[in-house]
């Protein structure tokens, strides 16, 4: 196989300029990871392209020279989507960080893919507008990465996820062409809905270079509530009861006792160390409806056995509680050095069963779990607290996740709610979506990316196609391999 050798590197350098090209061992090491546990691989080089034309040239070159290309934002993904593969060049998009337009007549924002999600939110909120998707890493992650993974967040329950806010995209296809999809029209039925198809494609179909987002008016009122529970099962019941009472909080988060203690170690905001679970909720909207919802929720929480219910007295207190929740995944690393975080998701009514299944997995495979997540939309984050240096334990952890994914699917759930399939869940994809679906995905991928050069091996693996007869004799194999 052709390699990303010096000759090819020189060509890449001439496309992006020497100062935007890195291939020192230190730089390769520093782009060998994202936030996913257990996976890392060094690329052959890293580039920071300045414009779409450079990206197009790189992709064309990749098809000629047969090297792989892996697009990357801030590298905070949790399924390994931006981790380099063999013989690959990483394209880093973080310098594409301009908000190109905020259109307050059509309520849209046009952004470059490297814009930080939290910064976009701040900018639009200055104009009384709202971009709801808020992944835990919102202060760091990029919109491009959010679109590529169809990222969710705390507000998913009421406001949906990234796909609900993408009106259009521009991306460079693997053959170097520019593909534009969507536009400012709220309604658009011209042809296949390619726009939604790109959302969540995990950088396997093109390099996104521009995104048009939908904005909504910012809710004028928020009430943030926290409830402590002595029994975890009570908290799960409260979640189900709130949903079946036809109240839709903008946020309904759950944290178990392991998570509470790690988060409290980090934040020192007085979370109850002895509680079995806490729920963190927010209702938003306009006027008295918000108060009514909050009161109704408080009643349900108390009726279902909450030992303590409190509404945040200031915006400062509310934001402390929310950022404490956002730190949960990383705070769990206080216990053990490796935290394998997954996002198995089930229909909301099955949440109490799923929580029980995670505890069962923990007992059965003798591994520790911290459990938290977006209880309101059935999206759990069972996090295994382990140590990658201990092979035996890692094996048990992987078996525990195998069990969890299988149980989730049995409950009508899915293997990933918001992190994407990437590397870490691709072996479960067939189980989750079925063989015909995976086959269709592979056909689509190959019709767009003939040589499978763009982020190959993510979501699913495409086995190398053999042309002619298979080599059989020793000499033939030798020739084939060399």
């Amino acid at each position: 196989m052709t390699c990303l050798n010096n000759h090819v590197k020189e060509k890449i350098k001439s496309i992006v300029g020497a100062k935007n090209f890195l291939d020192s061992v230190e730089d390769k090491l520093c782009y060998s990871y994202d936030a996913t546990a257990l996976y890392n691989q060094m690329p052959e080089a890293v580039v920071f392209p300045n414009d779409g034309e450079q990206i197009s040239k790189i992709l064309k070159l990749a098809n000629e020279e047969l090297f792989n290309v892996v697009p990357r934002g801030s590298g905070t993904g949790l399924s390994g989507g931006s981790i380099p593969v063999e013989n690959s060049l990483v394209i880093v998009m973080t310098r594409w960080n301009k908000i190109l337009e905020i259109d307050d007549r059509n309520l849209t924002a046009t952004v470059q893919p490297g814009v930080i999600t939290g910064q976009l939110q701040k900018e639009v909120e200055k104009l009384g507008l709202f971009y709801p998707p808020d992944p835990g890493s919102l202060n760091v992650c990029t919109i491009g990465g959010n679109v590529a993974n169809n990222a969710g967040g705390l507000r998913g329950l009421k406001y949906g996820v990234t796909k609900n806010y993408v009106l259009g995209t521009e991306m460079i296809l693997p053959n170097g062409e520019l593909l534009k999809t969507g536009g400012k029209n709220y309604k658009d039925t011209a042809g296949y809905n390619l726009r939604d198809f790109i959302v969540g494609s995990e950088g396997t179909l093109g390099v996104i270079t521009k995104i048009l987002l939908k904005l909504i008016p910012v809710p004028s009122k928020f009430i943030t509530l926290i409830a402590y529970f002595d029994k975890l099962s009570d908290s799960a019941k409260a979640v189900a009861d709130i949903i079946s009472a036809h109240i839709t909080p903008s946020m309904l988060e759950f944290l178990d006792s392991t998570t509470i203690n790690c988060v409290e170690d980090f934040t020192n905001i007085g979370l109850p160390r002895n509680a079995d679970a806490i729920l963190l909720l927010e209702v938003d909207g306009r006027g008295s409806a918000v108060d009514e919802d909050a009161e109704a929720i408080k009643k349900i929480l108390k009726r279902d056995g909450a030992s303590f219910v409190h509404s945040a007295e200031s915006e400062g207190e509310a934001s402390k509680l929310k950022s404490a929740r956002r730190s949960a995944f990383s705070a769990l690393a206080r216990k053990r050095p490796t935290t394998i975080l997954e996002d198995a998701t089930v229909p909301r009514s099955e949440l109490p069963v799923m929580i029980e299944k995670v505890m069962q997995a923990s007992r059965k495979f003798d591994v520790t779990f911290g459990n938290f997540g977006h209880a309101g939309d059935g999206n759990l984050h069972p996090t295994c607290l382990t140590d990658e240096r201990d092979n035996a334990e890692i094996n048990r952890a992987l078996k525990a996740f195998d069990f969890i994914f299988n149980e989730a699917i049995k409950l009508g759930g899915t293997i990933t709610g918001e992190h994407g399939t990437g590397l870490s869940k691709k072996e479960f994809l067939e189980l989750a979506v079925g063989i015909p679906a995976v086959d269709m995905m592979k056909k689509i991928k190959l019709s767009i990316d003939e040589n499978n050069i763009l982020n190959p091996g993510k979501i699913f693996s495409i086995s190398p196609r053999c042309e002619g007869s298979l080599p059989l004799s020793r000499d033939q194999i030798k020739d084939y391999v060399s």
Partner: protein
Amino acid sequence: MTKQNSNNLLLSALPDDDVLSQCIHCGMCLATCPTYELTKLERSSPRGRLKMIKSVARGEMKISKIFAEEMNFCLDCQACETACPAGVKYGSIVEAARVVVEESGYGKLVSRFLKYIALKIIIPNKSLLKSTARLLRFYQRSGLQKFLHKSGIFKMIAPKLTEIDNLSPTVSSKFSDNHLEEKISSAVPTKYKTAFLTGCLMNVMFDEINSDTIDVLKALNCDIFIPKNQVCCGSLNEHNGDFETAKSLAKKNIDAFGQSDYDFLITNSSGCSAFMKEYGHILKDDPEYSGKAKIFSSKVKDIMEFLANVDIEKKLNILNDSVTYHDACHHVHTQKIFSEPRKVLQSIPELSFNELEESTWCCGSAGIYNITHYDDSMKFLERKMNNIMKTGSKIVLAANPGCISQLKYGAKKFHVDVEILHPVSFVKKSLNANK
């Protein structure tokens, strides 16, 4: 000794694998790191640096020029520690890595020489430090400085020398330890028994702030013990990897302050209070000093931390200035002091207190970073001065001598019309406002 062995010995200075494995590279640090923000390169980020250190420690990667540059490009502001949910002790890890860089010979020659002279020779020796300061004072006041600047001789030697010379603070006309009594007793019944660290640079460069601190303590009816044989706290040595000198200075201070009984050891330099709170930790394996060090550390209080917890509110008089507050890294990130100075300042009647955007971002002073990395330092400073300008305040308060010098320089360089003061001086102004 074989090369392999010497290499292993060198790497043994790095923390063990358990400590280095704590980072899960989630990236929550990226948004708070000034150097990553500047370059947008992973290698200039906390998690990138940790990944490199881990690879070097495991013998998977060699120490290199890039590795050395990145370790020293880091400001060691520790904003990433504040942001890190996993609790990675980044500061101490990068400080250990710097030791390895220095030993391996990859450090910059100029900065190594500067550090050697300043940290090994001058700072640990109080009388030498004062003599040096006197020389510098002569240089600054005799007209020699002006003459040399005008002559263009600096530009001939190195163009940046003029700028760096301008960065150094002016030597005080008096040195604190020369004019402050060793024991100051409260005129009325004593309310608090305190001791006071005059500091090394504070003593010779910022005597006014020391005097203001003493005046504030006096106004609060404190007994103040200022031992004559106290020495530099050792923080500068620690940050630059010279642990032995740091420990020996710590022991000298424990002995010096141990001569009297006090409840609070007050400092007005955030670097000093941060490090003296660590004496208990750095001497934990010393059979003679471990116990004493622990008690010593438990009494250390930064002046703003002390003021936030005493009865000062009623004594503060009206000031209708418009001020903003810059959080020194060693306050907010190392000691987690954030609300205390705000509480004190906001209880000054009629004061207009304006929050500074990115108040917890490093100003680029960072020890001697503004000398060793002048150009980068100025980029951080420019960002800080822009934020200061946006507040519209006329006074900027900062509780660290390094920040004060840097911000004064920034005000001049970027033409921002503000006065830079230590918050304790401002508190004194309020205490005296009625007189």
